[in-house]
């Protein structure tokens, strides 16, 4: 028990909370068909995270989030600038800018000496959950002991706050975000400016990328952003249930992925632990496959209904003579 509390509880919570933050925000990307924007942002914010870490010398969230935001803004400006100067297609410009900024982040890790402390390329690839330990824990009583709880890794507390803020924002802007996601032109026509809302989504994605950085790294964060929303989308056509199911999927992804990575090797007699971030993505992939195959719209449908895709092609126009 003490070993679980000391070594596994904090990473388990961190993985779950990070996946919840990403999974909820990922809905806003998936439903507006811009999931790859999450991938792009997660790459682009890396130099910001490194600089924030380098300047502040801590992994405390505020400087890292500030750095990530600054990097996201720089990326957006660079994209606008390169597009204006080159007339390349937007996809190419985004690819150039985001991979370039990611590379810059890697270089900065080496140059600033951040890798000597806590932040190295492994962390970018896999996250650093194993760094979250709670040595003050002595048995189950520590969960109620204020002195021991004060020693609990701050990253987990920060993640809990970020999750609470995310949920609060989604609730406060519930109908506005749905409107802006479904029909931005109509939203503007009735004075509900969607631009600030899409900017807010960008900010939230940046925050989610930072939140998930220590848990899953910069690369696999895309799985945390997209997979829970995709799983939910395969299971429901309801907007509210979409968010609820994505949260459930994100929790299973985070907790289940960590659990499999930490405990399965022992059960299987492997000498070493498995990578938690990778296992989370694997768990999410398995869930997605199950949802697609066995969900209400898949080939094995319990209800026997198939989703109609009426909107893909416009209905052919009746000849005028029929009128």
């Amino acid at each position, binding site marked *: 028990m003490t070993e679980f509390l000391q070594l596994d509880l904090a990473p388990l919570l961190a993985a779950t909370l990070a996946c919840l933050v990403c999974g909820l925000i990922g809905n806003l990307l998936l439903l507006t*068909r811009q999931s790859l924007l999450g991938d792009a942002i997660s790459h682009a914010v890396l130099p910001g995270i490194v600089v924030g870490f380098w300047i502040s010398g801590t992994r405390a969230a505020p400087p890292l989030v500030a750095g990530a935001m600054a990097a996201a803004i720089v990326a957006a400006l660079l994209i606008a600038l390169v597009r204006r100067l080159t007339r390349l297609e937007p996809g190419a410009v985004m690819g150039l800018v985001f991979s370039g900024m990611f590379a810059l982040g890697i270089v900065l890790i080496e140059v600033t000496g951040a890798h000597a402390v806590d932040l190295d390329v492994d962390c970018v690839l896999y996250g650093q959950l194993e760094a979250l330990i709670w040595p003050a824990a002595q048995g189950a009583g520590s969960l109620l002991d204020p002195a021991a709880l004060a020693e609990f890794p701050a990253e987990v507390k920060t993640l809990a706050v970020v999750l609470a803020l995310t949920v609060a924002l989604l609730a406060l802007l519930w109908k506005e975000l749905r409107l802006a996601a479904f029909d931005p032109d109509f939203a503007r026509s009735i004075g509900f400016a969607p631009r600030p809302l899409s900017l807010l989504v960008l900010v939230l994605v940046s925050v989610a990328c930072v939140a998930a950085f220590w848990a899953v790294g910069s690369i696999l964060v895309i799985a945390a952003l997209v997979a829970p929303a995709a799983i939910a989308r395969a299971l429901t056509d309801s*907007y509210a249930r979409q968010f609820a199911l994505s949260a459930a999927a994100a929790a299973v992804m985070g907790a289940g992925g960590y659990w499999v990575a930490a405990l399965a090797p022992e059960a299987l007699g492997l000498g070493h632990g498995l990578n938690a971030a990778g296992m989370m993505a694997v768990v999410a992939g398995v869930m997605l496959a199950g949802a697609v195959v066995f969900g209400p719209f898949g080939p094995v449908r319990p209800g026997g209904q198939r989703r109609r895709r009426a909107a893909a092609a416009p209905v052919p126009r009746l000849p005028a003579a029929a009128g």
Partner: protein
Amino acid sequence: MNDAAPAAMRSPPGPPQVPALAVRHLSVAYHEQPVLWDVSWESPSSGLAAIVGPNGAGKSTLLKAVLGLVPRLSGEVRVFGRPIAEARRRVGYLPQRASVDWDFPATALQVAAMGRYPRVGWFRPLPRAERERARAALAEVGMADFADRQIGQLSGGQQQRVFLARALALEADLYLMDEPFAGVDAATERAIVEVLQRLAAEGRMVIAVHHDLATAPQYFGHVLLLNVRAIAAGPMATTFTPENLARTYGGRLSLLEQAVAAARAGGARVAGPAGP
């Protein structure tokens, strides 16, 4: 901009007939390519008006420029004599059906209820009374039984009716509709026409981008012929002439279409709607 204003100003009793929409010297360009050039037009204060012109004539862009959805190069827009920013609550927009993702997880009622958002305001959940107003708007277009259906499961015509219900829920005085009849079945087309005629009878103004030259004279009393520039505008009977249509469509109007249009225009002038 207060709540009472739109209701009080609807169907003005006296003669001060302000045009519902007035654009003056409006120009819009995409990538330095003019889409609308020096368009000036005053709509009637109420009734049904069609915007007719070939593909790429800037018809949808005109509506979007009026609403501020695309930037204007130059020109002025007045809605009931006011700048659009002060008149938003009196304007209802019906975008092209193909402009949104119908696979979106929302029900018909949730989409129709978006027409009530201006009355609800930011940050507040939709009150029950407003949801019932949205339900009533769905009933007006014959979609009451589909309120809880996901919009992707509706046919094209039903989706268009949901869009129309959302517009009705706005209770606007000026409606800007982008191809309300595009890709709908005959029953939906008749239902939409009935709704438009009722809106006009209530003293509201409906301006619709319309593609079908054959039905334009039947449905609309007023027309703006547009091809980047405003070619002609006025009452349908005197404006929708073969000569004006030829000027609007240039060489692109086929002889057959010209003949049909001329026949319909002639019929409309003499005897109103002339069905086959």
